[in-house]
């Protein structure tokens, strides 16, 4: 058996309530690692083109990777893969917490849920005896994710949906502990199967190739994290909300449905403000994570609950022109409890506000007005009244009411909180990422707009190169499955501590910006492992690992997603940005928006695709991607 894997895939058929444990496909694991990569390969192979994402034919795949089940910091995420009901293309999301650890400890790498139960059901997996129970879940149907997990108890770890998933809100997520696999509508797919929850626990040990080396090295990584200015300090103090003031100063904080990149009251929704005024505690709800980016705040009627993260602060805050942190915290709690992605929710609300402002939709919503939003969020989750319309997301709303130029989605998935007009590489990433308008499938903005060492985000240099490298890295991390925040540690403390206005940092930035093809070549070299995820992969699986290997794995996974999308009709015509991003300038001196048309041809070329955006047979063969 391959080291780092439990060696088993649990197949569950809800239609006839049967299950079996099958051996892990080692060829798939060796090519696609696990997590998102393994899940995508299964999805591609097992489904016919054109299936309805909410039909029993769409499998819902929960997948761990070789780092899960270890105590490596940030190795606590599982991936969920299915066809997305939101985009019609590849759907995937990852989630922290402790479910992935419990899954691996139950001796399971992957759970494939297929079919559909006639009645609401939940599944309990006994990770010691391998027995599975299908339990009627009528008593839980309609309950929120927090209450559901509380009723299910603490003996097992749970992945559950709330009313949004039950009602097939197209951006419903799957919640575990306080974390959510938020994007792509994976919760709607779970709801379409009438599956309320999966619960499991086990006590099996992960077999590693070199456990002693892993143990010693992990100790040193914990120290590195503790001493790191971001992972060990600012993320602890401010959470992800610590970036609000930065994106605002860089003019890329979505404001008023992405019309602007600057919000005058941004400070009131920042991580620093939260620390000073609202914070009730710092908590990482992800097992074995020393970063503790999780916030705790008080919400009236709910007590001390998980606080909003950056994306939520932006999409439900500045983007709606709301600066009341208490309101945003309440909406964040509601969305989590109802089981919804706050990014898609926020961008859909802002779209509805602009439609209303332009007289295109009769709805009682206004920028800057908090009244009525809590009720509307509940209506979305329950598909009541106008909430039923918002439950389908901004793309479908624009098809019904018009306004496609300012419906802020890519491929049907709402864009996250970095305005690409001030972050060109991030714009290319949004346009080309297979699951749609997302930032954690690459996080290019870190290297151009927000991190300690950034290049000029508004010229063409490296703007097609960075997304390729970052998307490949993210694909690999999401297959191990490791939190992408770990990549923020790539830039060493020494650089963080340099004078940000000093000559050495400016020179470094210039050198980086002018690396040209050297940037990708340096990341694609196969040699000894450098970064911790490479070393862990090597110590756990025994396989050689380096930045070059990671780029190869990631490129393979990315291309597989691409050909899945093409098969499902999500083609290169959807490699674009909303017209507002392409046409409307937000910086003085700009005459239009993001220069995507100048960057896409180069991006396709670097990818080894033809100019129509189709992967060539040569690149598929090179990466061993079977179509």
């Amino acid at each position: 058996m391959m080291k780092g894997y439990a060696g088993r895939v649990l197949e569950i058929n809800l239609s006839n309530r049967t299950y079996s444990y099958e051996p892990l496909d080692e060829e798939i694991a060796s090519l696609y690692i696990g997590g998102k990569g393994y899940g995508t390969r299964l999805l591609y192979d097992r489904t016919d083109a054109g299936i309805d994402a909410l039909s029993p034919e769409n499998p819902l795949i929960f997948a761990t990777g070789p780092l899960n089940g270890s105590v490596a910091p940030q190795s606590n995420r599982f991936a969920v893969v299915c066809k997305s009901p939101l985009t019609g293309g590849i759907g995937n999301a990852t989630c922290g917490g402790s479910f992935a650890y419990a899954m691996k400890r139950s001796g399971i790498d992957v759970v494939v849920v297929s079919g559909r139960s006639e009645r609401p059901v939940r599944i309990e997996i006994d990770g010691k005896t391998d027995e599975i129970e299908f339990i009627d879940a009528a008593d839980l149907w309609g309950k929120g994710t927090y209450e559901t997990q509380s009723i299910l108890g603490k003996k097992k770890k749970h992945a559950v949906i709330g009313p949004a998933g039950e009602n097939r809100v197209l951006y419903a997520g799957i919640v575990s502990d306080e974390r959510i696999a938020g994007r792509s509508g994976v919760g709607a797919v779970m709801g379409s199967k009438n599956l309320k929850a999966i619960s499991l626990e086990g006590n099996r040990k992960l077999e590693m190739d070199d456990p002693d080396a892993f143990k010693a090295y992990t100790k040193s990584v914990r120290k590195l994290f503790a001493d790191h200015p971001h992972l060990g300090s600012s993320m602890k103090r401010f959470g992800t909300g610590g970036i609000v003031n930065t994106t605002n100063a860089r003019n890329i904080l979505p404001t008023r449905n992405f019309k602007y990149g600057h919000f005058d009251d941004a400070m009131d929704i920042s991580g620093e403000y939260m620390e000073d005024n609202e914070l009730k505690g710092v908590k990482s709800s992800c097992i074995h994570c020393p970063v503790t980016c999780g916030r705790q705040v008080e919400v009236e009627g709910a007590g001390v609950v998980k606080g909003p993260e950056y994306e939520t602060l932006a999409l439900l805050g500045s983007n709606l022109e709301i600066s009341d942190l208490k309101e945003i915290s309440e909406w964040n709690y509601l969305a989590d409890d109802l089981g919804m992605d706050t990014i898609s929710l926020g961008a859909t609300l802002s779209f509805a506000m602009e439609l209303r402002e332009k007289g295109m939709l009769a709805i009682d919503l206004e920028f800057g007005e908090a009244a009525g939003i809590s009720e509307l969020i509940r209506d979305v989750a329950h598909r009541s009244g106008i909430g039923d319309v918002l439950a389908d997301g901004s793309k479908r709303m624009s098809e019904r009411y018009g306004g496609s130029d300012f419906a802020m989605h890519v491929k049907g998935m709402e864009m996250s909180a970095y305005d690409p007009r001030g972050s060109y590489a991030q714009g290319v990433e949004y346009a080309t990422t297979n699951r749609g308008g997302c930032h954690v499938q690459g996080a290019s903005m870190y290297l151009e707009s927000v991190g300690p060492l950034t290049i000029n985000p508004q010229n063409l240099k490296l703007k097609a190169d960075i997304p390729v490298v970052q998307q490949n890295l993210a694909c690999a991390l999401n297959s191990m499955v490791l939190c992408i925040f770990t990549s923020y540690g790539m830039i060493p403390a020494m650089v963080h501590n340099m004078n940000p206005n000093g000559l050495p940092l400016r020179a470094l930035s210039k050198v980086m910006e002018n690396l040209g093809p050297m940037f990708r070549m340096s990341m694609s070299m196969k040699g000894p492992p450098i970064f911790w995820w490479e070393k862990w992969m090597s110590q756990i699986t025994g396989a050689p690992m380096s930045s070059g290997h990671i780029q190869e794995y990631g490129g393979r996974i990315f291309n597989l997603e691409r050909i899945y999308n093409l098969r499902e009709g999500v083609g290169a015509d959807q490699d674009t940005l909303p017209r507002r991003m392409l046409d409307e300038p937000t910086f003085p001196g700009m005459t239009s928006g993001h220069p995507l048309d100048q960057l896409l041809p180069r991006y396709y070329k670097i990818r080894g695709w033809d100019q129509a955006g189709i992967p060539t047979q040569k690149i598929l063969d090179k990466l061993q991607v079977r179509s």
Partner: protein
Amino acid sequence: MSVTVELSYDMSKALGERRLEMPNPGCVREVVSYVEQKFVEKGADFSLLSKVTSVAINGVLTNHRRGMKTKLEDGDVVAFVKAASGG
């Protein structure tokens, strides 16, 4: 001619205001000196906060322009900005 100066969170706590209007600045260095003077008047330490902040003009870092010598125009927004990560 004047520019708006947006302070970092910590700077605004120290000065008790978030924004300053500065008349007739020639370049970024003059803005930095202006803010430093405000700190001196308040008896606060500017160097601790300024050494962790870059300066952006209308969202673009001065590092990508002409640094502290970058000339300013009427209506520019000059912001003190910290590096961050998140998501």
